[in-house]
Protein backbone atom coordinates (compact mmCIF):
# COMPACT_ATOMS: atom_id res chain seq x y z
CA UNK A 1 0.00 0.00 0.00
CA UNK A 2 1.29 3.46 -0.89
CA UNK A 3 2.10 5.97 1.80
CA UNK A 4 -0.42 8.48 0.36
CA UNK A 5 -3.15 5.84 0.53
CA UNK A 6 -2.50 5.27 4.20
CA UNK A 7 -2.57 9.00 4.87
CA UNK A 8 -5.89 9.54 3.08
CA UNK A 9 -7.47 6.54 4.75
CA UNK A 10 -6.41 7.70 8.21
CA UNK A 11 -7.59 11.27 7.53
CA UNK A 12 -10.87 9.90 6.26
CA UNK A 13 -11.48 7.81 9.31
CA UNK A 14 -10.69 10.77 11.56
CA UNK A 15 -13.13 12.89 9.54
CA UNK A 16 -15.92 10.31 9.90
CA UNK A 17 -15.24 10.08 13.62
CA UNK A 18 -15.42 13.86 13.95
CA UNK A 19 -18.73 13.99 12.04
CA UNK A 20 -20.13 11.23 14.25
CA UNK A 21 -19.05 13.11 17.34
CA UNK A 22 -20.77 16.26 16.12
CA UNK A 23 -23.97 14.33 15.47
CA UNK A 24 -23.86 12.55 18.81
CA UNK A 25 -23.32 15.84 20.64
CA UNK A 26 -26.27 17.31 18.76
CA UNK A 27 -24.21 19.99 17.04
CA UNK A 28 -24.86 18.68 13.54
CA UNK A 29 -28.21 17.56 12.25
CA UNK A 30 -28.26 14.26 10.39
CA UNK A 31 -29.69 15.75 7.20
CA UNK A 32 -26.68 18.01 6.83
CA UNK A 33 -24.30 15.19 7.67
CA UNK A 34 -25.43 13.03 4.76
CA UNK A 35 -23.38 15.06 2.26
CA UNK A 36 -20.25 14.77 4.38
CA UNK A 37 -20.68 11.06 4.90
CA UNK A 38 -21.12 10.53 1.15
CA UNK A 39 -17.96 12.56 0.51
CA UNK A 40 -15.91 10.45 2.87
CA UNK A 41 -17.29 7.24 1.34
CA UNK A 42 -16.15 8.50 -2.09
CA UNK A 43 -12.71 9.39 -0.79
CA UNK A 44 -12.37 6.10 1.00
CA UNK A 45 -13.38 4.07 -2.06
CA UNK A 46 -10.85 5.86 -4.23
CA UNK A 47 -8.06 5.61 -1.70
CA UNK A 48 -8.35 1.83 -1.72
CA UNK A 49 -9.17 1.47 -5.39
CA UNK A 50 -6.45 3.52 -7.10
CA UNK A 51 -7.25 2.28 -10.61
CA UNK A 52 -10.80 3.59 -10.20
CA UNK A 53 -9.82 7.17 -10.85
CA UNK A 54 -7.87 6.19 -13.97
CA UNK A 55 -10.93 4.27 -15.19
CA UNK A 56 -13.22 7.27 -14.64
CA UNK A 57 -10.72 9.52 -16.37
CA UNK A 58 -10.76 7.34 -19.49
CA UNK A 59 -14.57 7.05 -19.41
CA UNK A 60 -15.09 10.81 -19.29
CA UNK A 61 -12.25 11.64 -21.68
CA UNK A 62 -10.48 14.00 -19.26
CA UNK A 63 -6.73 14.29 -19.99
CA UNK A 64 -5.41 14.77 -16.46
CA UNK A 65 -7.06 12.78 -13.66
CA UNK A 66 -6.55 15.60 -11.14
CA UNK A 67 -8.77 17.87 -13.21
CA UNK A 68 -11.59 15.38 -12.96
CA UNK A 69 -11.28 15.36 -9.18
CA UNK A 70 -11.26 19.17 -9.00
CA UNK A 71 -14.17 19.61 -11.39
CA UNK A 72 -16.23 17.00 -9.59
CA UNK A 73 -15.58 18.40 -6.16
CA UNK A 74 -16.03 22.05 -7.10
CA UNK A 75 -19.36 21.22 -8.67
CA UNK A 76 -20.44 19.28 -5.59
CA UNK A 77 -19.36 22.13 -3.33
CA UNK A 78 -21.32 24.70 -5.41
CA UNK A 79 -24.46 22.60 -5.21
CA UNK A 80 -24.00 22.24 -1.48
CA UNK A 81 -23.51 25.99 -1.08
CA UNK A 82 -26.73 26.58 -2.96
CA UNK A 83 -28.43 24.17 -0.61
CA UNK A 84 -27.07 26.13 2.34
CA UNK A 85 -28.43 29.38 0.84
CA UNK A 86 -31.84 27.75 0.61
CA UNK A 87 -31.56 26.70 4.24
CA UNK A 88 -30.52 30.24 5.23
CA UNK A 89 -33.48 31.74 3.32
CA UNK A 90 -35.89 29.42 5.07
CA UNK A 91 -34.38 30.28 8.45
CA UNK A 92 -34.62 33.98 7.57
CA UNK A 93 -38.35 33.65 6.85
CA UNK A 94 -39.01 31.56 9.95
CA UNK A 95 -37.04 34.01 12.05
CA UNK A 96 -39.06 36.94 10.71
CA UNK A 97 -42.36 35.22 11.49
CA UNK A 98 -41.20 34.36 15.00
CA UNK A 99 -39.99 37.89 15.71
CA UNK A 100 -43.31 39.35 14.53
CA UNK A 101 -45.31 36.85 16.51
CA UNK A 102 -43.31 37.50 19.69
CA UNK A 103 -43.58 41.28 19.44
CA UNK A 104 -47.33 41.11 18.78
CA UNK A 105 -47.86 38.72 21.70
CA UNK A 106 -45.78 40.90 23.98
CA UNK A 107 -47.88 43.92 23.10
CA UNK A 108 -51.10 42.00 23.74
CA UNK A 109 -49.74 40.69 27.01
CA UNK A 110 -48.81 44.18 28.21
CA UNK A 111 -52.28 45.43 27.31
CA UNK A 112 -53.89 42.69 29.40
CA UNK A 113 -51.50 43.37 32.25
CA UNK A 114 -52.46 47.06 32.27
CA UNK A 115 -56.15 46.15 32.24
CA UNK A 116 -55.87 43.82 35.22
CA UNK A 117 -53.80 46.32 37.18
CA UNK A 118 -56.47 49.02 36.84
Amino acid at each position, binding site marked *: MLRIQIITIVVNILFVLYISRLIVKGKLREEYAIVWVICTVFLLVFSFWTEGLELLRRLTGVVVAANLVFTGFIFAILIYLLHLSVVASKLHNDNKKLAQEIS*LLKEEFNKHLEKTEK
Partner: protein
Amino acid sequence: MPGKVLIVIPCYNEEASLPALLPELLSTNLPNGYQMEALIVNDCSKDNTSTVAKKYKATVIDLPVNLGIGGAVQTGIRYALENSFDLAIQLDGDGQHPPKELPKLINHHLQTGANIVIGSRFLEKEGFQSSFARRMGIKYFHWLNRLMTGLSIYDSTSGFRLFDRKATQLAAANYPDEYPEPESLVVFSKAGLKISEVAVVMAARQGGQSSIRSFGSLYYCFKVTLAMFFSFIRKP
Protein backbone atom coordinates in the same frame (compact mmCIF):
# COMPACT_ATOMS: atom_id res chain seq x y z
CA MET B 1 -70.54 53.14 12.64
CA PRO B 2 -67.23 54.97 12.24
CA GLY B 3 -64.31 52.83 11.11
CA LYS B 4 -60.96 52.33 12.75
CA VAL B 5 -57.69 53.39 11.15
CA LEU B 6 -54.29 52.15 12.22
CA ILE B 7 -51.35 54.43 11.50
CA VAL B 8 -48.34 52.14 11.18
CA ILE B 9 -45.10 53.99 11.87
CA PRO B 10 -42.02 51.87 11.19
CA CYS B 11 -39.10 53.33 13.16
CA TYR B 12 -35.41 52.65 13.19
CA ASN B 13 -33.42 55.13 15.30
CA GLU B 14 -36.02 57.88 15.09
CA GLU B 15 -35.85 59.34 18.61
CA ALA B 16 -35.07 62.75 17.07
CA SER B 17 -38.09 63.00 14.79
CA LEU B 18 -40.79 61.33 16.90
CA PRO B 19 -41.35 64.23 19.37
CA ALA B 20 -42.34 66.45 16.43
CA LEU B 21 -44.28 63.83 14.52
CA LEU B 22 -46.42 62.15 17.18
CA PRO B 23 -48.20 65.19 18.71
CA GLU B 24 -49.02 66.44 15.22
CA LEU B 25 -50.29 63.02 14.21
CA LEU B 26 -52.42 62.52 17.32
CA SER B 27 -54.07 65.92 16.90
CA THR B 28 -54.96 65.27 13.26
CA ASN B 29 -58.67 64.92 12.57
CA LEU B 30 -59.55 62.15 10.17
CA PRO B 31 -62.50 62.50 7.79
CA ASN B 32 -65.75 60.54 8.02
CA GLY B 33 -65.46 60.00 11.76
CA TYR B 34 -62.62 57.54 11.45
CA GLN B 35 -61.00 56.66 14.79
CA MET B 36 -57.22 56.65 14.80
CA GLU B 37 -54.75 54.47 16.64
CA ALA B 38 -51.05 55.16 16.23
CA LEU B 39 -48.74 52.17 16.21
CA ILE B 40 -44.99 52.56 16.46
CA VAL B 41 -43.12 49.52 15.23
CA ASN B 42 -39.67 49.85 16.71
CA ASP B 43 -37.38 47.82 14.47
CA CYS B 44 -34.81 47.05 17.17
CA SER B 45 -33.47 50.63 17.23
CA LYS B 46 -30.14 51.31 18.86
CA ASP B 47 -31.35 54.61 20.35
CA ASN B 48 -34.25 55.43 22.67
CA THR B 49 -36.99 55.28 20.05
CA SER B 50 -39.08 52.97 22.20
CA THR B 51 -38.84 55.07 25.37
CA VAL B 52 -39.58 58.27 23.48
CA ALA B 53 -42.56 56.71 21.72
CA LYS B 54 -44.05 55.39 24.97
CA LYS B 55 -44.44 58.96 26.28
CA TYR B 56 -47.23 59.52 23.78
CA LYS B 57 -50.66 58.01 23.43
CA ALA B 58 -49.50 55.39 20.98
CA THR B 59 -49.13 51.65 20.92
CA VAL B 60 -45.51 50.57 20.73
CA ILE B 61 -44.34 47.23 19.40
CA ASP B 62 -40.69 46.39 19.93
CA LEU B 63 -39.24 43.87 17.53
CA PRO B 64 -36.68 41.62 19.19
CA VAL B 65 -34.46 41.58 16.09
CA ASN B 66 -34.02 44.02 13.22
CA LEU B 67 -36.29 42.91 10.40
CA GLY B 68 -35.89 45.78 7.96
CA ILE B 69 -38.60 48.18 6.86
CA GLY B 70 -40.71 45.50 5.14
CA GLY B 71 -40.75 43.22 8.14
CA ALA B 72 -41.59 46.13 10.43
CA VAL B 73 -44.46 47.35 8.26
CA GLN B 74 -45.77 43.79 7.98
CA THR B 75 -45.80 43.54 11.77
CA GLY B 76 -48.05 46.61 11.84
CA ILE B 77 -50.23 45.17 9.09
CA ARG B 78 -50.63 41.97 11.06
CA TYR B 79 -51.60 43.98 14.13
CA ALA B 80 -54.23 45.76 12.02
CA LEU B 81 -55.60 42.46 10.81
CA GLU B 82 -55.68 40.81 14.25
CA ASN B 83 -57.38 43.82 15.82
CA SER B 84 -59.81 44.19 12.91
CA PHE B 85 -58.95 47.66 11.72
CA ASP B 86 -60.73 48.89 8.60
CA LEU B 87 -57.74 50.71 7.22
CA ALA B 88 -54.00 50.67 7.83
CA ILE B 89 -51.82 53.56 6.75
CA GLN B 90 -48.06 53.43 6.67
CA LEU B 91 -46.43 56.68 7.71
CA ASP B 92 -42.66 56.81 7.90
CA GLY B 93 -41.15 57.75 11.25
CA ASP B 94 -38.67 60.24 9.85
CA GLY B 95 -41.16 63.08 9.38
CA GLN B 96 -41.23 62.91 5.58
CA HIS B 97 -44.92 62.16 5.54
CA PRO B 98 -46.86 65.03 7.12
CA PRO B 99 -49.86 63.78 9.13
CA LYS B 100 -51.98 66.60 7.75
CA GLU B 101 -51.93 64.77 4.41
CA LEU B 102 -53.60 61.69 5.92
CA PRO B 103 -57.18 62.85 5.14
CA LYS B 104 -56.25 63.05 1.44
CA LEU B 105 -55.41 59.34 1.39
CA ILE B 106 -58.57 58.37 3.24
CA ASN B 107 -60.80 60.60 1.10
CA HIS B 108 -59.25 59.20 -2.04
CA HIS B 109 -59.93 55.66 -0.79
CA LEU B 110 -63.53 56.57 -0.02
CA GLN B 111 -64.05 58.18 -3.42
CA THR B 112 -62.37 55.59 -5.63
CA GLY B 113 -62.71 52.43 -3.55
CA ALA B 114 -59.05 51.64 -4.27
CA ASN B 115 -57.54 48.86 -2.13
CA ILE B 116 -54.16 50.59 -2.04
CA VAL B 117 -53.75 54.36 -2.06
CA ILE B 118 -50.24 55.74 -2.52
CA GLY B 119 -49.37 59.25 -1.44
CA SER B 120 -47.38 60.56 -4.37
CA ARG B 121 -44.89 63.43 -4.50
CA PHE B 122 -44.92 63.64 -8.26
CA LEU B 123 -48.50 64.09 -9.33
CA GLU B 124 -48.12 67.76 -8.50
CA LYS B 125 -44.77 69.46 -8.33
CA GLU B 126 -45.02 70.63 -4.77
CA GLY B 127 -43.00 70.20 -1.61
CA PHE B 128 -39.87 68.12 -1.22
CA GLN B 129 -38.97 66.43 -4.51
CA SER B 130 -35.77 64.58 -3.50
CA SER B 131 -32.44 64.48 -5.33
CA PHE B 132 -31.77 64.07 -9.06
CA ALA B 133 -30.33 60.54 -8.87
CA ARG B 134 -33.23 59.48 -6.76
CA ARG B 135 -35.73 60.96 -9.18
CA MET B 136 -34.03 59.06 -12.02
CA GLY B 137 -34.35 55.85 -10.04
CA ILE B 138 -38.00 56.57 -9.40
CA LYS B 139 -38.53 57.16 -13.15
CA TYR B 140 -36.95 53.82 -13.86
CA PHE B 141 -39.28 52.09 -11.42
CA HIS B 142 -42.22 53.89 -12.95
CA TRP B 143 -41.30 52.35 -16.28
CA LEU B 144 -40.65 48.91 -14.77
CA ASN B 145 -43.93 48.99 -12.88
CA ARG B 146 -45.84 49.91 -16.00
CA LEU B 147 -44.19 46.98 -17.75
CA MET B 148 -45.14 44.51 -15.04
CA THR B 149 -48.44 45.77 -13.72
CA GLY B 150 -49.77 47.84 -16.60
CA LEU B 151 -50.36 50.63 -14.11
CA SER B 152 -48.93 54.10 -14.27
CA ILE B 153 -47.63 54.64 -10.75
CA TYR B 154 -45.50 57.75 -10.51
CA ASP B 155 -44.19 57.33 -6.99
CA SER B 156 -43.80 53.58 -6.64
CA THR B 157 -41.12 53.95 -3.95
CA SER B 158 -43.35 56.05 -1.72
CA GLY B 159 -43.95 54.48 1.66
CA PHE B 160 -46.94 56.72 2.41
CA ARG B 161 -49.67 54.18 1.75
CA LEU B 162 -53.15 53.20 2.71
CA PHE B 163 -54.16 49.54 2.84
CA ASP B 164 -57.82 48.56 3.05
CA ARG B 165 -59.01 45.29 4.64
CA LYS B 166 -58.36 43.26 1.50
CA ALA B 167 -54.87 44.65 1.00
CA THR B 168 -54.12 44.14 4.69
CA GLN B 169 -55.03 40.48 4.44
CA LEU B 170 -52.73 40.02 1.48
CA ALA B 171 -49.83 42.00 2.93
CA ALA B 172 -50.04 40.16 6.26
CA ALA B 173 -49.33 36.93 4.41
CA ASN B 174 -46.96 38.20 1.75
CA TYR B 175 -44.87 41.34 2.05
CA PRO B 176 -41.22 41.66 1.01
CA ASP B 177 -38.61 42.42 3.71
CA GLU B 178 -36.10 44.65 2.05
CA TYR B 179 -37.06 47.65 -0.11
CA PRO B 180 -40.68 46.45 -0.24
CA GLU B 181 -42.41 49.40 -1.91
CA PRO B 182 -42.07 48.79 -5.67
CA GLU B 183 -42.09 45.02 -5.34
CA SER B 184 -45.26 44.88 -3.27
CA LEU B 185 -47.09 46.76 -6.02
CA VAL B 186 -46.44 43.86 -8.39
CA VAL B 187 -47.77 41.45 -5.76
CA PHE B 188 -50.90 43.56 -5.19
CA SER B 189 -51.69 44.12 -8.83
CA LYS B 190 -51.27 40.41 -9.61
CA ALA B 191 -53.76 39.65 -6.86
CA GLY B 192 -56.21 41.94 -8.63
CA LEU B 193 -56.23 44.74 -6.07
CA LYS B 194 -57.00 48.26 -7.20
CA ILE B 195 -54.06 50.63 -6.75
CA SER B 196 -54.44 54.37 -6.96
CA GLU B 197 -52.29 57.44 -6.36
CA VAL B 198 -53.14 60.72 -4.77
CA ALA B 199 -50.98 63.86 -4.70
CA VAL B 200 -49.50 64.76 -1.33
CA VAL B 201 -46.88 67.25 -0.22
CA MET B 202 -43.90 65.65 1.45
CA ALA B 203 -41.23 67.19 3.63
CA ALA B 204 -37.51 66.50 3.67
CA ARG B 205 -36.64 64.07 6.43
CA GLN B 206 -36.43 65.63 9.90
CA GLY B 207 -33.72 63.37 11.26
CA GLY B 208 -32.13 59.97 10.78
CA GLN B 209 -30.87 58.59 7.51
CA SER B 210 -32.57 57.19 4.44
CA SER B 211 -32.45 53.44 4.09
CA ILE B 212 -31.30 54.04 0.51
CA ARG B 213 -28.02 55.93 0.44
CA SER B 214 -25.76 56.60 -2.55
CA PHE B 215 -23.56 53.71 -1.58
CA GLY B 216 -26.26 51.11 -1.89
CA SER B 217 -28.42 52.66 -4.58
CA LEU B 218 -27.13 50.47 -7.40
CA TYR B 219 -27.67 47.43 -5.25
CA TYR B 220 -31.14 48.78 -4.52
CA CYS B 221 -32.02 49.07 -8.22
CA PHE B 222 -30.66 45.64 -8.99
CA LYS B 223 -32.27 43.90 -6.05
CA VAL B 224 -35.65 45.51 -6.59
CA THR B 225 -35.60 44.76 -10.32
CA LEU B 226 -34.85 41.12 -9.58
CA ALA B 227 -37.46 40.93 -6.85
CA MET B 228 -40.10 42.55 -9.04
CA PHE B 229 -39.34 40.17 -11.88
CA PHE B 230 -39.68 37.11 -9.68
CA SER B 231 -42.85 38.42 -8.08
CA PHE B 232 -44.13 38.96 -11.61
CA ILE B 233 -43.52 35.38 -12.77
CA ARG B 234 -44.57 33.80 -9.48
CA LYS B 235 -48.01 32.21 -9.49
CA PRO B 236 -50.33 34.11 -7.16
